[in-house]
């Protein structure tokens, strides 16, 4: 399965040839040790001074100014031309579009008590489209998935989610494809757009929820725009990459035959890059789905609503069942988009008979029409039957299981939490957050330089300046401490499980589906039982982030270790290396670039969970973002916190990407 989460800022730059690598490496390690020693000494002497701590209720001028801007925008909403007509127009067009589709497929089209097309018709149409675009197996998958939504008791919500995702992805294609084409043709555009895409992916969704609501109001429009912001970048990046990597020889050949640039694009580049573009579409769809739960907070229709609602009554069972529907939908869309991209080549290879295909299509089409008619005529084909209900027994089973886990492991985990918090997290946080800000800034710049070279100096300094300017330095350092501890745990898990999976096909087959599920399951779902185990603590928030980030890291490490040439491994074994020696001396060092990449992705994924983690005791920047979303008076501070998280993310990304480029080549 290819449920890779959205690729974030992953642009390996070619590494300079390692000259005197050994010697300069040693010098760098010495310098690093020196910096760390100076840091600890400085911390011990100056602890708690000039660390820019700011109480939760205190606001800076910047925060108040942002709040004031919000109030003014809100007041101007009705009499400002731009806000009223342009933004208002977009907003009502989106609302109207989603509502139209809902009345067509999922929600009662008042005064009809049911939608225009009932469940039977929707399933039949979906199967028909799936067969047409992706073939028989996907058609079966789609049928089973759609029926599962209904049998689990979430028919309407599932179709709503499909609609919102569909509209958002549709707009992504309209904006993203032309942008990707433009980027593939102009380096300057690439240079301008790339940082914007970085910010879009690093900025926590909670941070832009409040401003979006300000402009688009609560409801489907805001939900679509939120989803759009988060889901657009992968499509743009991947399609630009795909178009750029169309072989230059082919292009030259076509140009020399006299093709215009437009013909070149339509007849050569786009068809040749089709597969890559669809990979981008696949990533974009997955990203859009993962925004579902968050969009529910601003009244976005879909499966997020039951998840959020179940959390209020602590109903792990219901939350899991609606979460399961999201997972099923993710698998369905993932498989459908991937297969659609492979379709043409597969058809050619298997010599599928086009006449048979056309006949099946025609039959399915007629069946779909009949189903639509039936679903408009008879109530039982219009409203999904409540019996049999698979959702309730499943929810009950999950509830009793999570009760058992809590009863059995409750005491143990509390001690573990204390151990990690007091032994690792608290000292580390103190080191980062209680050092004077100037010392901390100097240390970060020095470490960045030593790890990644002079190219990261400018971005690091700029990001640190932004964090300082946000007035939330101390909170940012606390968040950084949590992020680093989380990433450390992710890497431990990533290496241990990744190596295991790479060496054993059985382990791989058993673990991979679990990883896929973890990547698509909304984090809210496993947060609640976890609170019972770990209490509302920072450690709990870190655990949630680790669960979210580990699958990516594990997959990357697995691929990296597996890519180490078998001959090398055999040679090592023949020379008498034990398994342990083979792993530590051969496989891991040779998979070094995969390890650094895993660390990069791990960091960014952990950071992206900072805000969600704050719902269960994570504190610091994440808490401020939620606070700003929830409490009007804290809007400005929340927005500043969102910007600080973004700056932190961009900085960490730059440092790891350049470190990878420098040391990553095995």
């Amino acid at each position, binding site marked *: 399965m290819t449920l890779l989460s959205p690729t974030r800022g992953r642009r390996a730059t070619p590494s300079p040839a390692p000259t005197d690598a050994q010697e300069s490496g040693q010098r760098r390690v010495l310098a690093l040790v020196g910096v760390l020693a100076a840091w600890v000494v400085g911390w011990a002497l100056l602890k708690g001074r000039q660390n820019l701590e700011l*109480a939760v*209720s205190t606001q800076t001028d910047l925060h108040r100014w942002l709040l004031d801007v919000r109030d003014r925008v809100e007041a101007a909403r009705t009499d400002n031309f731009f806000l009223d007509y342009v933004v208002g127009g977009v907003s009502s067009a989106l609302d109207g579009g989603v509502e139209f589709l809902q009345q067509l497929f999922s929600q009662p089209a*008042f*005064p*009809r*008590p049911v939608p225009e097309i009932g469940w039977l*018709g929707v399933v039949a*149409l979906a199967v*028909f*489209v799936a067969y*047409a*675009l992706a073939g028989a197996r996907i058609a079966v998958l789609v049928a089973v998935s759609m029926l599962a939504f209904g049998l689990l008791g979430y028919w309407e919500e599932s179709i709503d989610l499909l609609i919102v995702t569909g509209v958002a992805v549709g707009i992504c294609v309209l904006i993203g494809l032309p942008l990707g084409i433009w980027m593939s043709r102009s380096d300057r555009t690439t240079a301008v757009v790339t940082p914007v895409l970085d910010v879009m992916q690093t900025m926590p969704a909670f941070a832009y929820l409040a401003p979006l*609501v*300000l402009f688009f*109001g*609560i*409801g489907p429009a805001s939900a679509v725009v939120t989803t759009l912001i988060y889901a657009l970048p992968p499509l743009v990046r991947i399609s630009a990459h795909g178009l750029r990597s169309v072989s230059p020889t082919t292009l030259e050949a076509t140009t020399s035959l006299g093709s215009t640039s437009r013909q070149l694009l339509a007849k050569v580049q786009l068809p040749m890059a089709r597969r890559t573009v669809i990979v981008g579409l696949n990533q974009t769809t997955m990203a859009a789905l993962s925004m579902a739960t968050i969009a529910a*907070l601003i*009244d976005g229709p879909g499966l997020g*609503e039951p998840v*959020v*609602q179940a959390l*209020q*009554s*602590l109903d792990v069972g219901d939350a899991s069942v609606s979460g399961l529907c999201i997972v099923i939908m993710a698998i369905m869309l993932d498989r459908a988009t991937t297969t659609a991209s492979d379709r*043409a*080549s597969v*058809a*050619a290879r298997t010599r599928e008979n*086009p006449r048979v*295909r056309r006949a099946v*299509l*025609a039959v399915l*089409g007629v069946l*779909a*029409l009949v189903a639509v*008619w039936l679903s*408009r005529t*008879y*109530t039982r084909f219009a409203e999904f039957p409540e019996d049999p209900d698979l959702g309730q027994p499943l929810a009950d089973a999950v509830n009793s299981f999570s009760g058992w886990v809590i009863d059995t492991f*409750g005491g143990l985990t509390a001690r573990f939490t204390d151990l990690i*918090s*007091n032994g690792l997290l608290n000292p580390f946080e103190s080191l980062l957050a209680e050092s004077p800000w100037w010392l901390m800034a100097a240390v970060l710049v020095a470490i960045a330089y030593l790890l990644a070279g002079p190219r990261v100096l400018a971005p690091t300094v700029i990001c640190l300046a932004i964090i300082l300017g946000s007035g939330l330095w101390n909170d940012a350092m606390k968040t950084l401490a949590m992020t680093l501890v989380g990433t450390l745990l992710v890497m431990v898990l990533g290496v241990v499980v990744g190596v295991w999976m790479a060496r054993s096909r059985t382990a791989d087959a058993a673990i991979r589906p679990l990883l896929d599920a973890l990547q698509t399951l909304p984090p809210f779902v496993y947060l609640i039982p976890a609170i*019972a185990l770990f*209490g*509302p*603590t*920072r*450690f709990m928030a870190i655990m949630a982030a680790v669960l979210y980030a580990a699958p990516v890291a594990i997959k990357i490490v697995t691929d990296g270790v597996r890519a180490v040439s078998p001959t090398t491994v055999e040679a090592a074994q023949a020379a008498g290396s034990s398994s342990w020696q083979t792993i530590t001396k051969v496989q891991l060092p040779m998979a070094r670039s995969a390890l650094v990449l895993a660390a990069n992705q791990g960091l960014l994924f952990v950071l992206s969970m900072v805000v969600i983690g*704050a*719902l*269960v*005791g994570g504190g610091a920047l994440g*808490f401020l973002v*939620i*606070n700003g*979303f*929830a*409490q*009007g008076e804290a809007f400005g501070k929340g927005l500043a916190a969102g910007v600080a998280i973004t700056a932190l993310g961009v900085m960490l990304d730059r440092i790891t990407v350049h470190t990878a480029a420098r040391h990553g080549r095995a």
Partner: protein
Amino acid sequence: MARVGRPGQAIVAVCAVAGLALAGCGSGDIEQTDTSASGGEDCGEFNMAINPWVGYEASAYVVGQLAANELGCDVEYKELKEEIAWQGFGTGEVDVVIENWGHEDLKKKYIEQQATAVEVGPNGNIGIIGWYVPPWLDEEYPEVLDWQNLNDYADEFETSESNGKGQLLDGDPTFVTNDEALVENLDLDFEVVYAGSEAALIQTFRQAEENQDWVIGYFYEPQWFLNEVDLQKVSLPKYTPGCDSDPEEVACDYPKYILDKIASTEFMESGSPAATLVENFEWTNDDQNTVATYIAVDDMEPEDAAEKWIEDNPDKVAAWMP
């Protein structure tokens, strides 16, 4: 490559068009079947905000189900945090907030300045905010219930999150709270730690009672969870009117909140029968706790829970109907 795709695409297009056409001409016997209204055919849309705690849900669904089943309204429930819901009054996304806790700042902004919302009077519930401990603490250390003794036990309440002091657990940042100022002004050796949500608070209290852990935290009534675990309220210096006027200097208990209903101006003036229902709606803390318990403990869908209560209490309901 392209040849395989083409006929398929054509057929898809033809069928899609045909499907839509067929959907348009729609025959059938389920056209406008049941809008089983008892005289209120002009009710139209009714958007009820659902703020994030179960007690609220109970009130909202009782009113909502009455509007849907008895008045024939097209009811939509919208899960929204308090602030966000208020913003919806102006845009028509939200018609009613059925349980409002104070929020003087929001009243000033949306009722006085923007005039998009109006007060519709108390809903009968009395809101209590305070610090609570699990019942086992009350039995074994009853002196904990007096704030003046809290410092003696600060060590016991310490956790990995509380910076060497006792931990006072707060909930969702949206909730009305003076706790940081209180700790400061009452010279308590405690640190406020935010659990993040009602769910996290409840889960922590539940565990604390089961494992006899030391926990003290922010909590409130009406609240279904008190039917499951009978948390005990810690006494704070008595509330006198005006003692909480300066948020930084507060050193007294929270007032009793008279919870009230807020609705969009447009909705109240629309003449919808649902507006009259909202105006008449008033019930007690016990009523709300009953429905909330159905939802949270008995695991009923909120719609079913509300309908069960409506069936059991025809007299109360009759008094609200237009």
